[in-house]
């Protein structure tokens, strides 16, 4: 087997610098307590995989990190900036934190290339030629430069997701969040997306990935977090997490998914 996901564990690129600091964070949807007293520190270059049953709050957690969802209690500090109502901070955070969604969320009325250059041109105020150059560089990195002039509706799901990754990378973010990036894909397309993510991990990007792909978690994760009912139940390196899970709920979850 030559797939990258089957390769042995990548060496860690984590440094000592803390880039995401979450303390005592709580979130409710109406009466429903989604996240309960979450404490989590992520270091620069660290790669974290979050797993757990559906409804456990794992997507909500990463959506809080780039302020797509508002949290009600506690603190989230990303790259030294405290998340809150300050709109200027908000747009700053969003340009520093890239996010990839389950449903890609590409802009269907723009070509692939325009999808990629939109952020650099309008938010980063980059020149058009430079933005195009950057976009082509990242399209080559996700291995679909030949699709640049097509519309999202004309390419496959796997290709769309790779474009979505490239779109986030064009903003040159410090952190990348992945919200179940392969869940909406056909099985034969999952690998091409995971390969791109492994490539990205090799460059030392800080990544938080919500996924059910345990093979992927074993390959790239520095740490695996298991969430259930709004709690972080267990947090460990992948070797120990999969080898000897400590908590009863983790064992149960793993026995169902592996």
């Amino acid at each position: 087997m030559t797939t990258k996901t089957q390769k042995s564990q990548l060496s860690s690129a984590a440094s000592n610098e803390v880039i995401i600091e979450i303390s005592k964070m709580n979130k409710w949807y109406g009466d429903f307590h989604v996240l309960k007293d979450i404490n989590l520190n992520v270091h620069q270059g660290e790669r974290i995989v979050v797993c757990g049953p559906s409804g456990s709050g794992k997507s909500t957690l990463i959506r809080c990190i780039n302020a797509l969802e508002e949290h009600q209690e506690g603190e989230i500090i990303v790259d030294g900036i405290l998340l809150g109502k300050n709109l200027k901070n908000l747009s700053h955070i969003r340009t520093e934190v890239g996010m990839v969604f389950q449903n890609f969320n590409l802009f269907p009325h723009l070509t692939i290339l325009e999808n990629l250059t939109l952020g650099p041109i309008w938010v980063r105020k980059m020149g058009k030629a430079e933005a195009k150059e950057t976009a082509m560089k990242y399209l080559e990195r996700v291995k679909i430069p030949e699709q640049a002039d097509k519309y999202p509706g004309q390419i496959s799901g796997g290709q769309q997701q790779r474009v979505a990754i490239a779109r986030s990378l064009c903003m040159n973010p410090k952190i990348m969040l992945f919200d179940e990036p392969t869940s909406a894909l056909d099985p034969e397309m999952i690998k091409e997306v995971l390969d791109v993510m492994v490539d990205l991990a090799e460059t030392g990007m800080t990544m938080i990935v919500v996924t059910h792909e345990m093979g992927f978690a074993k390959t790239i994760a520095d740490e695996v977090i298991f969430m259930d009912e709004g709690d972080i139940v267990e947090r460990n390196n992948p070797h120990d997490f999969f080898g000897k899970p400590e908590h009863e709920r983790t064992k149960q979850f793993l026995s169902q998914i592996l």
Partner: protein
Amino acid sequence: MAIVTAQKTPDRQPPLSETSIIGWMQKNLFSSITNTILTVITLYIVYLTVKGIYIWGFADATFVAENRRECYNNSLTGACWAGVIDWMDNIMYGRYPRDELWRINAGGILVVLWMAPLWMSKVKGKIFIGISVVMLYPFLAGYLFSGGSKGLFMQVMVSGAIVAFIANMLNMIIGLTKNQSLVQFLLRIFNQNNASDKTQRNVILGIMIISFLAIFLWQISFNLEKVGWTQWGGLFLTLVIAGVGIAASMPLGVILALGRRSRLPVVRVLSTSFIEIFRSVPLITVLFMATTMFPLFMPDGFVLNKLVQVIIAVILFNACYMAENVRAGLQAIPKGQFEGAHTIGLGYWGTMGLIVMPQALKHMIPNIVGNFIGLLKNSTLVSIIGLFDILLMLRSISRDVPWLGLHREPLIFGAVLFFILCFSMSKYSRHLEKKLSTDNKS
């Protein structure tokens, strides 16, 4: 038994019913006895109708006559188009001075020429053309139609519009012949096409300022004769009201729709109540309010002419319908698009302007055009408050002494005219929908 067919089955011609007209007719018109009877009856009714219209409207009709008496002498069963033809100038231009009609025609030709490049694929800079036609043309046309002495503001706007029009035409010609934009062409002439961005900008700016000053000095020397708005009328007045109404209600509608979806409660409540109030009142009431009530709230001595009041009323009324169309379009955009836009750092206006609106407008085209058609037809209501629009002009024919009692022909003529205008709008919107949806298969 594992192999079902060893050879590939060759393609065959489809049956006759799928390809030929006779086959289609057999299948759809004469498939059974009942179907055949229905077809024959329907064809007979169509024949009678067309024959009746033809005899009344063409075969027996009178096209040249001095008055209605002559029409009757010619034929009792045919239409009397002579009255409509005699009144044609009135129907088109109202009581606009006959020597000044060229100004209206020029205004019409100007807007057609101005917008023509928008449909030419070779011409560049379409955004500027679109913006200039909305921002500058109304001033030029407004002055052309009303005349009088220009204030400083009008002088500036008219000169700007003339410069923009000339630039637009040159841009079109250069685009069609040399396949480049006016800016590129000018830079080549002045040998600046390799200069830095800043010098290039200065050269273009310089050319613009010089031509603006030249036009400005030239236009001081003449003034058009003043034509009061009371002399405007006919199809011209209808198109002015509908055109201004369409052009202004669109942006206002977008703003109201955004306001209604705003997170700020004050903005939301204000927009919602504005929309709901105007939508639940008939247009004719709004028009009466605008012309009779509005002046009561104005300070003494402040006189707004009736035409402006009517146009404002039409804009506000239509903007509310437009706002609801826009809101429907906005709601069709999935939440993921907003989130996608947020994650690349776009703010509210960036998200709306670059991501949401372009997609939403595409969904809204049928409704918006439907709204435009409604506005064009509704604008005939202004005849009730005494503006001599096309409807009132058509009805006046029957009160003109030589054509006394001639009701039917003018109204039928008006109906056909409106049908042509509205049907072409509707056809164009279908075309636009198709074009936009093939650009973008999703």
